[in-house]
C-alpha cells in the first residue's frame, strides 16, 4: 500500500470505530446532538469527497461520482438517516481503496510477469568489469553476461558456452544451449556459463525493449466492449441522476394532485438510493482491467497480443489459414528415411554423404549433417556434378551415383518409385541400385495435436497454404487432418487465397493467418488477425503481425484463442453482472424494496467482485 492508500485506510478505521461507538451510545433518535456527533465520522471519512464535489461543481462537472456521493449522503443526513449517510461514505471509500489497491497490485503483477527489462550491462572498461546503463552501450560493443544475469542487448556470442532460460520470453521452460557464433536475444537469463557477447543492436531496438514496448502500449487499441463501456458510462450516470430527480419529484407531486399524502421523505430517500447506484465504476474499471490481465497472462504464455481488440477478434476466430513451411513444419531439411537395397544403411548414408562432400546445396548439407562424422576428402576422387541430375564420384574404388530418378535412368539403373513427401535421392554403387534417401521438411511434433486443439477451440475451417507441390501438400494435410489445402502458390497467390476465404466467412467470424513472418507480411496484414510465430528476434514479423507467438510451437495458436476466449468470457460476465445488478437494484430502489445498504452493495460490492473476476484473466495456465 502506498502513502495515499494508508491514509485512507486510517480514516476508514477511525470513522468505522467512531460509528460503532455512536451506535452503542444511548442517544435520542433524530436529536441535534446525535446529528452533530455523527458529523464527526462523516467529515473524517468524507471531507475529500465533499471537497472534490465542490471543485467539480465549480468546473461544471456535475455528474462525477464525488458529487453523487456528496448529494446522496448529505441528503441522507438531512432526512435523519445518519447511520446510512456515514455508511455510504464509508463503504464508498472502502470500495475506492480496494479498487486502487487491486489495480496497483495487478499492475505490479503484470510488470513482474514481464520482468525482462535488463537493468544493466557489464562492459570491460580499462580492464575491469563495469556495470553501465544498457542504453549507453553502442552497437558492436563487447558485453559480459554472468550466470544468473539477464542478457541486456541482442548480440552474437563471441566466447563461452551456456544454457539460456527463455521462459520469460517464450513461456517455454526448456533451456536453450548456446555456443560461440550463436545469436542471443535480450531478456533471456544466462544460467550456467559466462558469455562474452558482441552486441548487434541498440538497447532500444533489442528484443526485450521491443516486447515491453509492445505489451505496454497494447491497450491503446481499444476493443468493442471497452468502447461500449465508456459510451455507456457517459450515458448511464446522467440518466440515473435525472431518474433520481424525477423519482424525488413526480410521485409526491402526483400524490398531491390526486389529494393523498405526498410522503416527500420516502421518495427523496428512494431518489438518494438511485444516486448511490449511479456510479459506473465497477464497469469502467473491470473491463480494461480484464483486458490488461488477459494481455499480461498471454505474454506470460509467450503470446504477445498487440491490442485488446485482437483478443476480442481472436475469441471469434473461425477460419485458420496456415503457412506450411516453418509454421506446421520445421522449415529445415532433414534426412527422414534411409532405404538401402542390398547394402547397409550406414554404408548407403556414408557413401552418399562423401559423394556430396563438395556441394553446398541445402540437400547436401542435410546429408552431411545426417552422416555426422568428418569426411576425409582423400578417399574421394573424380567428383563430377551432373547438372540437374546429381553427382558422380569414385569412393574407395566404387563408382557412386547420387541423384534423382533421371540420373538413374541415364545410367541405366531402375530406381524404386517413391511416393512420399520430400526430395528423394537415389543412389547406385557401380551401376547397381543401392537404395534411396528421403530428405524432407519434417512436421513439427506438435502440429497434429495443434490442429485438433484449434478445432476444439472453435475453428471450423483449417486451411494450409504452401508453395510446395500438390503431392507433398496433400500428404501433409492428410497427416495433420486439415480441412483444405492450396498448393503450388506464389507469395502473391497466398494473398489472393486469403481474400477468397475472407469473402466466404460470415461477418462476425474472424480469419486468422499464421505464418513464420519472414515473407508473408502482406498476408499477415490482409487477414483479420495476423499471427507470426517463432518471431523471437525478427523485427519484421513483430511489426507486421497482430499477435506474435514467441516460439514456434503451433500449439500456441489454440492457446492464444483459448486465452482470448477466457478473457472475453470474463469481460461479458462482468458487463452482464454489473449492469444486471445495478438495474435490479435501481428497480428495487424505485419501488422501495432496496434501501441504501443494498445500494452500497450494488455499487461497491459489484465493483469488488468484478475486479476479482477480472484478475482471473491473468491465469492462463490451464486454458
Amino acid at each position, binding site marked *: 500500500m502506498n502513502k495515499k492508500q494508508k491514509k485512507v485506510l486510517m480514516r476508514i478505521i477511525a470513522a468505522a470505530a467512531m460509528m460503532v461507538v455512536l451506535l452503542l451510545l444511548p442517544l435520542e433518535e433524530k436529536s441535534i446532538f446525535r446529528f452533530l456527533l455523527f458529523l464527526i465520522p462523516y467529515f473524517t471519512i468524507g471531507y475529500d469527497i465533499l471537497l472534490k464535489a465542490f471543485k467539480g461543481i465549480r468546473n461544471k462537472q456535475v455528474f462525477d461520482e464525488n458529487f453523487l456521493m456528496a448529494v446522496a449522503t448529505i441528503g441522507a443526513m438531512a432526512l435523519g438517516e445518519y447511520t446510512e449517510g456515514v455508511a455510504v461514505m464509508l463503504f464508498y471509500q472502502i470500495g475506492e481503496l480496494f479498487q486502487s489497491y487491486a489495480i496497483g497490485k495487478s499492475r505490479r503483477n503484470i510488470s513482474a510477469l514481464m520482468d525482462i527489462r535488463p537493468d544493466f550491462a557489464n562492459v570491460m572498461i580499462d580492464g575491469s568489469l563495469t556495470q553501465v546503463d544498457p542504453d549507453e552501450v553502442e552497437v558492436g560493443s563487447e558485453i559480459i553476461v554472468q550466470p544468473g544475469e539477464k542478457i541486456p542487448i541482442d548480440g552474437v556470442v563471441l566466447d563461452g558456452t551456456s544454457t539460456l532460460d527463455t521462459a520469460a520470453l517464450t513461456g517455454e521452460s526448456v533451456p536453450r544451449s548456446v555456443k560461440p557464433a550463436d545469436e542471443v536475444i535480450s531478456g533471456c537469463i544466462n544460467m550456467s556459463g559466462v558469455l562474452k557477447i558482441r552486441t548487434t543492436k541498440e538497447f532500444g531496438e533489442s528484443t526485450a525493449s521491443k516486447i515491453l514496448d509492445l505489451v*505496454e502500449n497494447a491497450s491503446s487499441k481499444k476493443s468493442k466492449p471497452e468502447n461500449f463501456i465508456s459510451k455507456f458510462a457517459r450515458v448511464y450516470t446522467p440518466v440515473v441522476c435525472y431518474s433520481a430527480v424525477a423519482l424525488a419529484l413526480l410521485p409526491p407531486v402526483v400524490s398531491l394532485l390526486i389529494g393523498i399524502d405526498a410522503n416527500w421523505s420516502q421518495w427523496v430517500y428512494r431518489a438518494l438510493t438511485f444516486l448511490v447506484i449511479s456510479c459506473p465504476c465497477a464497469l469502467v474499471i473491470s473491463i480494461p482491467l480484464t483486458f490488461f490481465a488477459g494481455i499480461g497472462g498471454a505474454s506470460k504464455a509467450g503470446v504477445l497480443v498487440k491490442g485488446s481488440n485482437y483478443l476480442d477478434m481472436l475469441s471469434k476466430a473461425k477460419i485458420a489459414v496456415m503457412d506450411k513451411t516453418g509454421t506446421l513444419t520445421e522449415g529445415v531439411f532433414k534426412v527422414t528415411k534411409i532405404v538401402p537395397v542390398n547394402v547397409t544403411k550406414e554404408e548407403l548414408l556414408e557413401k552418399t554423404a562423401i559423394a556430396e562432400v563438395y556441394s553446398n546445396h541445402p540437400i547436401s548439407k542435410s546429408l552431411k549433417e545426417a552422416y555426422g562424422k568428418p569426411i576425409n576428402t582423400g578417399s574421394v576422387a573424380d567428383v563430377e556434378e551432373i547438372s540437374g541430375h546429381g553427382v558422380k564420384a569414385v569412393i574407395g574404388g566404387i563408382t557412386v551415383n547420387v541423384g534423382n530418378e533421371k540420373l538413374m535412368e541415364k545410367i541405366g539403373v531402375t530406381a524404386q518409385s517413391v511416393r512420399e513427401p520430400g526430395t528423394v535421392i537415389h543412389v547406385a554403387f557401380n551401376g547397381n541400385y543401392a537404395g534411396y534417401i528421403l530428405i524432407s521438411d519434417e512436421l513439427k511434433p506438435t502440429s497434429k495435436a495443434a490442429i485438433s486443439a484449434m478445432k476444439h477451440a472453435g475453428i471450423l475451417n483449417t486451411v494450409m497454404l504452401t508453395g510446395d507441390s500438390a503431392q507433398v501438400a496433400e500428404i501433409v494435410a492428410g497427416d495433420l487432418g486439415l480441412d483444405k489445402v492450396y498448393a503450388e502458390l506464389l507469395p502473391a497467390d497466398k494473398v489472393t487465397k486469403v481474400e477468397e476465404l475472407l469473402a466466404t466467412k460470415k461477418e462476425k467470424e474472424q480469419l486468422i493467418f499464421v505464418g513464420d513472418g519472414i515473407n508473408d507480411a502482406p498476408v499477415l496484414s490482409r487477414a483479420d488477425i495476423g499471427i507470426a510465430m517463432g518471431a523471437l528476434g525478427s523485427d519484421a514479423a513483430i511489426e507486421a503481425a497482430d499477435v506474435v507467438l514467441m516460439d514456434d510451437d503451433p500449439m500456441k495458436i489454440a492457446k492464444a484463442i483459448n486465452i482470448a476466449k477466457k478473457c472475453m468470457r470474463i469481460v461479458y460476465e462482468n458487463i452482464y453482472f454489473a449492469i444486471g445488478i445495478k438495474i435490479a437494484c435501481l428497480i428495487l430502489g424505485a419501488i422501495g424494496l432496496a434501501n441504501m445498504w443494498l445500494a452500497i452493495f450494488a455499487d461497491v460490492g459489484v465493483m469488488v467482485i468484478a475486479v476479482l473476476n477480472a484478475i482471473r484473466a491473468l491465469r492462463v495456465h490451464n486454458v
Partner: protein
Amino acid sequence: MKKTYKIDVDCANCANKMEQAAKNTAGVADATVNFMALKMNVEFEEGVDVKAVMAEVLANCKKVEDDCEIFL
C-alpha cells in the same frame, strides 16, 4: 505526430474523462488514455505547438478531474 505521456489518475472513469477532455482540445487529432498502463497517447494535428497544446490538454483534464496529473 504522436507522443506518449505518463499520467497519474486514480479511477478508471476519470481516465475516460481525461481521454475525452484531451480529444476535445484544439490541436489534438486523437488521444487515448490507457488507465492500466497510466499512459496517454496523443496524436497532434499538423504544425501545432506541442508544448502549448499539451498545456491546454492538462488544463482541460484538470477541469474534468481535479486529481490527475500528466507528466509533460
